[in-house]
Each structure stands twice: as structure tokens, then as C-alpha cells.
């Protein structure tokens, strides 16, 4: 990379930082700090999406003609780094990273015109209906049925792990439209309104005592066939396309690096008895080891980005980045918990709520350590469990 390119990126970074600093409200920042899972608190995440939307920065990876920024992959990484440096809430991925690409890739012009604007602006919030009680990582065994009835489908069955289903007005779902052929062949990709009669949403309480996931039940829910994206029984291709859409989209490192710096800074502060945790050799070594691992994550992500030729997919490296990034994130959560120690023990539901005005009993960081640790266990479960990813990676490398 030439040095004038470097300085262009520096200019870009400064421009991003200036905007973010001026645009983020106190409440949005509070929500960013109090984000203890991949999903930021709903209300503030949507408020922040609106601000980015107005700036034109809400969907950096989308093609420019649909509202993308036209940034290079390096600029996109810098944007994420700067958002994380300010601890801003990440835009919820459902609209922009999940359903948007499906509509862009497989939707008709009419569908694009109808759905994309609301996804970008956040006027709509889309939830995901993929997993089912009997099918977690094994999507081919989906059972939720969409039976043909004239111009409509009639939906029966249920979905689970639907994040923020209780906040959503729309859903994109994989449903079974045929039981013939291979199990994954009879699946279609469907858009639906959450206020359709016959849909019930039950929030699930998570380990941190908060509802984030939902179960969604369908009883003779009627959805127009016009809401299907792509061909009937070809929903699998749509879902696969979405997974590959954001090439080089792995940004664990962009999150971990500034988070690590905050953790280290905490350890450099003196506590009540004028002791700095960082002067404990064992803590300092653990920080040093974590920094090595984070650096490995960051440079592996940047290497994959830098070496990708135009139009190429990262292939098995996508599995590798998922495993590595999620597990280093979990290590980070463990060290953060260890550093907080007994200060992390108290449940503080009210103080955790954004805008509650209730102060943490000790420091905010201590209050967040336990919910973050607990929630981060999900990182090796969601988005293709790390067991599935390891098999994918090994098989791809070995060619079996």
C-alpha cells in the first residue's frame, strides 16, 4: 500500500470520527456502552440507524445504486473501527446485512422499490425466521410449512431464536413449500408482515434476564405469494447468497482492538487501595496474551480483505474468521470478568436499562462484565455453531 493511500485513509478516518462524535447523542452512546451482546438495545440502535441513514452511511456494503457508500473494504473496516472506538451501538444486522442483500440479489424491481427504502431508513424492522425448535444448525430439516392456496401461502409451524421478534413489524423467513427432493430443495424465502393474523410472538428470557430472542408461532397465517423472494423451492440459494454477500465482512478485530484498549486502561487505573491491577504480573501477562490473539484476529481479517480479488469470496477463511473471532471475543469476556472479580457479581437489571437514570452500584464496566460474559457464550453457537464451522473448514481445506 502506498503512503498517499495511507494518508487518504487517514483523512477518511478523521472524517468518519468527526461525524460520529458530533452525531451520536448521549443516549445513543449510553446504549452503545450497555450493549452486552451482538444486538444493541433496540430503541437506540434504531435511532442511530436513522442518523446514519440521513448521512448516507447506513449500508456501506450495499451497491451504490441501492444506497451503499461505495467505500473500499478498507474504508468499511475503518468505519467499524471508529464506531467501536466511540462505543456506538452497532446497527442491527437484520435489515442491512440479512434481508437487504436477499432483496437486492433476488428481488424483482418492484420488490426492491417496495422494501429497500424502509430497510435503510429503519422505518421497518425485519426479524429473521430461520431456526426452528427442531432445527438449529441443521437448516435443511426445517418443518414450518407454507402451503399453496391460490395466490397465497398458508403458514403453519413455528420459528425460534428470532432476535427482537417482539420489536419487528416485518419478518423474512425460510419456509417449506415442498417435501419432495432433497430436504433443502423444498424451501422458499418469504417476506411477511408481523401483524398478519395467525402470528404469535413469545419472547424468550436470556441468561442475563432480558428478552432478546423470540419464538414465533404460525397458525394458518396467510401470506401473498408475491412476497416470495426468488423462485419457489429455491430459498436455499437466497440464504446462501446472503451469507456470502458481505465478502470480507468479518470485523471482530475492529471491535476487539478498541475494547482491549479500554480494558487495559481500566487495569492501569489505581483502585481504592492505590493498587493498579496491571502491576499484578499475572494480569499483565494475560492482557499481553489477549493482545496477541486480538492482533492475530485483526491481521487475519485485514489479510483476508487485502488478498481477496474482486468478486472473490473468502471461502473457508470465512469459517476460520468466525471461529477465531468469536473465540477471542469469549476470551476477552473472560478476562474482563476476571478483572471485575467480585464487583461483577451483583444483578443490576434496572441500571442496565438505557435511560433508566439509575447509576451502577460500582463502575459501569463492572456492571457490564457479567451480562457480557454470559451473552458472549452465544458467539460460538449462533451464525453456524463453531462445531459446524470447524467441520466446514477442515473439509474445505482437505477437500473432502
Amino acid at each position: 500500500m502506498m503512503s498517499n493511500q495511507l494518508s487518504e485513509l487517514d483523512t477518511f478516518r478523521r472524517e468518519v470520527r468527526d461525524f460520529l462524535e458530533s452525531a451520536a447523542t448521549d443516549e445513543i452512546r449510553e446504549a452503545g456502552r450497555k450493549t452486552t451482546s451482538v444486538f444493541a438495545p433496540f430503541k437506540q440502535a434504531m435511532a442511530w440507524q436513522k442518523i446514519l441513514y440521513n448521512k448516507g452511511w447506513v449500508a456501506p456494503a450495499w451497491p451504490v445504486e441501492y444506497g451503499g457508500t461505495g467505500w473500499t473494504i478498507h474504508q468499511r473496516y475503518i468505519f467499524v473501527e471508529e464506531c467501536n472506538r466511540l462505543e456506538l451501538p452497532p446497527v442491527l444486522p437484520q435489515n442491512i446485512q440479512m434481508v437487504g442483500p436477499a432483496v437486492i440479489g433476488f428481488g424483482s424491481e418492484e420488490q426492491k422499490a417496495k422494501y429497500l427504502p424502509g430497510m435503510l431508513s429503519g422505518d421497518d424492522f425485519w426479524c429473521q425466521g430461520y431456526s426452528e425448535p427442531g432445527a438449529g444448525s441443521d437448516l435443511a430439516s426445517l418443518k414450518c410449512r407454507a402451503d399453496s392456496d391460490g395466490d397465497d401461502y398458508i403458514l403453519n409451524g413455528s420459528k425460534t431464536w428470532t432476535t427482537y421478534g417482539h420489536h419487528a413489524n416485518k419478518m423474512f423467513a425460510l419456509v417449506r413449500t415442498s417435501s419432495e427432493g432433497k430436504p433443502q430443495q423444498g424451501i422458499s424465502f418469504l417476506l411477511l408482515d408481523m401483524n398478519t393474523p395467525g402470528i404469535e410472538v413469545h419472547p424468550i428470557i436470556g441468561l442475563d434476564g432480558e428478552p432478546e430472542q423470540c419464538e414465533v408461532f404460525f397458525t394458518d397465517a396467510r401470506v401473498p405469494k408475491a412476497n416470495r423472494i426468488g423462485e419457489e423451492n429455491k430459498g436455499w440459494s437466497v440464504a446462501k447468497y446472503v451469507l456470502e454477500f458481505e465478502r470480507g465482512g468479518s470485523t471482530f478485530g475492529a471491535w476487539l482492538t478498541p475494547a482491549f484498549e479500554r480494558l487495559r486502561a481500566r487495569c492501569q487505573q489505581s483502585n481504592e487501595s492505590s493498587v493498579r491491577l496491571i502491576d499484578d504480573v499475572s494480569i499483565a501477562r494475560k492482557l499481553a496474551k489477549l493482545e496477541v490473539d486480538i492482533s492475530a484476529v485483526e491481521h487475519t481479517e485485514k489479510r483476508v480483505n487485502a488478498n481477496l480479488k474482486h468478486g472473490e469470496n473468502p471461502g473457508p477463511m470465512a469459517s476460520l474468521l468466525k471461529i477465531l473471532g468469536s473465540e477471542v471475543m469469549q476470551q476477552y469476556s473472560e478476562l474482563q470478568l476476571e478483572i471485575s472479580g467480585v464487583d461483577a457479581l451483583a444483578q443490576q437489571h434496572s441500571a442496565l436499562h438505557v435511560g433508566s437514570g439509575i447509576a451502577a452500584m460500582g463502575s459501569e464496566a463492572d456492571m457490564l462484565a457479567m451480562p457480557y460474559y454470559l451473552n458472549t457464550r452465544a458467539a460460538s453457537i449462533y451464525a453456524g455453531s463453531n462445531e459446524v464451522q470447524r467441520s466446514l473448514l477442515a473439509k474445505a481445506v482437505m477437500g473432502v
Partner: protein
Amino acid sequence: MFYQYSEDQNAFRDSLRRFVQDHYDYETRRQRVEKSEVFNTGYWRQLAELGVLGLPFSEADGGLDLDFPYLMAVAEEIGRGLVLEPVLPVTVAGRLLAASNNDDAKSHLAALISGESLVSLAWEESSSRGNPLLTQCTLITRADGYVLNGKKQAVLAAAESQFYIVSTRDSGGDLQLLLLNAKHSGITQRCYLLADGNSAADLEFNNVELPASAIIASASQAEALLQTAISESIVVMAAEAIGAIDQLLVITQEYLLTRKQFGMPLAMFQSLQHRFADMVIVAEKLRSLLWAACQQLGSNNQEKSAAQLKVQLGESARYVGQQAVQLHGGIGMTDELNVGAYFKRLTVMELLCGQQDYHLGKLAELELVS
């Protein structure tokens, strides 16, 4: 060396297990935690009637004078059933009173054993990071007694207790153990639930005026009593962890045998089998060190073997808890299934009584001289 319960201990354990099974179905427990109703006076009275509160106390003090493994058996069943009532911290605190030479202090034991009153041991502080000899609390001598200032953190069962045992340094730098009435003026309680639903509080002492008789142990005797209480806490906590881990293994095993993916029960997947084997291995390591440590209580090796036990507890509790969640997938991340509750209880145990890192540091110092 012995490594298992005697017949009598087993019989006692079985009877307690039935009590726990009858009173601690998961859904009821979940609702109690949600409503912050984590201390049930009826249950407490029943536990007292079952003799659970008087096991490791002499008959003179009103107890049953039974071996320590009886208390371990209780702890195992508490762990297996995720019991919320603070039997273990209160009993360990009671044993500290019993070991003191202070008749005034010992006079509270009868009420403790009968379930009429509870006592909490307040020693953890944020900046002590597990080391009971590090305290920022101060005790200043006045003409007419003493004045206590400072803070204690994560004091178990403090909301329910009528008395606190508090560790502090006096102006000469000596450790002192005090017995205080919870209602004594100048004490502020900030009560809360721990992440696992157990009751605890932070205590703040603002110019608490005390008579000389409040001191129940001083200097080296105070240090010895406190270290013993912490060693005993670690042993009963490890027994509780074993109960929780055993149950979590049973739950996980049932899930792996039942749940199918890609057309096969999860139990048939080799990498999950190996993970399960590793969970069993760390469970057995903990069980072995538990029996070893319980036999060192009261000996010169007490602190070392308790520290080793806590190190192993850190490893075992974390591995089994994390992997049980992982093997369950999404459902392991919910409050609906008890897996998460075990995981949280095991995580809290990692943090209490000194983390693995603290005990490794302590053991490392012993390597210098052994």
C-alpha cells in the same frame, strides 16, 4: 485416606436429596429469583428440623457433632438442586464463632442451629481480590471502645442475617474479627441478588461505635480463624460445585441422547463425545481434590490443599458450565431451561473466595519454600 461417603453419610445425603427434590423444581426456583423471594423462612425451619444447620457443631454448642463430610453431603445436594437458602455460608460463619474463645459469640450458636437467627461472614472487598488478609476497613481505639469504618462486598446472606462477623485492621495493623448486630447504628446494607440468584449485600460501616467485647479474635488468632473459615468455605463450595456439575452432566447427557441433528442423536457425534469426556474428566479431578482437601482441614496443609481445590474448581466449573451451554446450543442460553442457572451458579463460584489466579499466586509462593 478415604474418598467416599460412609453409609450413614450416604443415608443422610439421600434424605436431603428427597427434601430438595420436593421443594426445588426449577420453575418454582426461577420464579422465586424473578420475584427476589430467595429466602423462605418455612424451608429454613424445615432444614433446621432436619438437623442440616447443626451438623458440624459440638453437642455442647447444641449441634450434632458430625464429621465434615456430612456438611459436604449437604453441599452436594444444595448444588444439585440449586438451593437458594444460605445453609453453607451461615454454617461456615457459625463454625468460626464456635472456634473463637469468645463465650458471648458462642452463645449465638444455639439460635443459629435452631434456625432462629443467621450470621454472615463479611470479609470480601473489591480491592482485596480474594486475599482475606487485605482489608481497607479500619478499627480505631477510643477511650470507651472502638470505631469501625469501611466497606465489605458480596456478603452472602447479609439481608437475612441478624449478625455479621467483620474482618478489619486496627491502627496497629493487626487483624481483628468483630461480631456486630446487623441493626447496629452506622451500618448500611445494600442488598441485591448475585448473578446466580443468591442473596448478598454490600455493607458500609460509618463510624460504627463498638464495645471491646465486639472483638471475637485478634491478630494471629483472627488470621487463623479467618483462613480456616475460607478453607472450609472452599471445601463446601467445591462439594456444592460437584453436585451442580454432576447434575449438569446428567442433563447434558440426556439432551445429547435425545436431540437429533443431521439425522443422528448428538451423542453419536465424535467431537461431542470427546467434549463430554473432557467434562467428565474435569469433574472427576475436582471430586478427587475435594476429598483430598476435606481430609486436610485442620492440618498444616489446609490452606494449600484448599487453594489447589479452588484452582481446580475454577477450571472445572468454567469448563463444564461453558460446554454444557455450548452443547445445548441456543436453548442453553435461555432462562427457561435450568442449564443456564447451573452455568451462572458455577460462574459465581469461580469469582467468590478468591479467583483461580489469586490461589495460583498463593500456591506459587509456597513453591518457593517447599
